């Protein structure tokens, strides 16, 4: 069980939106994490500087949060390393092959009213619902 946190989640979501607006306002860029991160891999994009800085900011966030709030960050991650390795491989490949993830297609694409992003979002959401259903309730769950 995890606690339903509508207020904190909506505030956190609004902050993600604020970050997306910042990138568009200053640099005219979409805040898609799979795009930003994957272009740091070879062949490295020419404008790698802000991309690397963005990823550093993402990674620094929990450290900053804990320093400021002095609250622990609740987290439960599967300890099944084979499962997590496979999941990582699929997430990395699928998001870049499909041109975006939850941020690029989900947040930014839906905000641009892009049909492509809407379809992509519906596809990965439905597939993820089915995957969780099969893991938890289907395959001997």
């Amino acid at each position, binding site marked *: 069980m995890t606690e339903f946190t509508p207020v904190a989640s909506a505030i956190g979501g609004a902050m993600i939106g604020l970050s997306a607006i910042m990138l568009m306002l200053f640099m005219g860029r979409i805040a898609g994490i799979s795009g930003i991160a994957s272009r740091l891999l070879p062949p490295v994009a020419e404008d790698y500087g802000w991309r690397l800085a963005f990823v550093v900011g993402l990674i620094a966030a929990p450290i900053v949060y804990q320093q400021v709030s002095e609250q622990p960050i609740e987290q439960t991650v599967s300890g099944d390393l084979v499962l*997590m390795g496979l999941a990582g491989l699929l997430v990395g490949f699928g998001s870049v092959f499909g041109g975006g993830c939850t941020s690029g297609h989900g947040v930014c694409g839906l905000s*641009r009213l892009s049909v492509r992003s809407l379809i992509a979002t519906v596809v990965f959401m439905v597939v993820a619902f089915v995957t969780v259903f099969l893991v938890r309730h289907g395959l001997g769950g």
Partner: protein
Amino acid sequence: MARIILGLVAGLIFGLGLVISGMSNPAKVLNFLDLFGTWDPSLAFVMGGAVLVTLVGYRLVWARGAPLIDTRFELPAKTDLDPRLLSGAAVFGVGWGLGGFCPGPALTAIPLGASGTMIFVPAMLIGMWLARQAPAGLLTARSAQS
């Protein structure tokens, strides 16, 4: 230099948003995806909050005509629903459903140091690298033949 600072600040705000919303916890994501079990609707509020703010913000920004420190808005031009988009999204969905991490939260979760995260992130980077190596016409050529 301005770009570096902007990137850093935008990344930090994004990451803090993920932490505050609870999305750096894969259990919360998996519970959202578990409609018929321990359902936690929080993720819908994250998406709702993010899209609402961005939807309005983008329009105000675009009304300016150009970004502040760059010459033009770099928006995706593709509009077709090609097999690459659909298959990529489906593969991503399977991985997301298995691990409960999408790319942003996985990176943000690194300092929390869970062993699953430490395996997930390098595997994700390998997957991203592989997808970038895939030839542009990989699926389109095959589907045109069939």
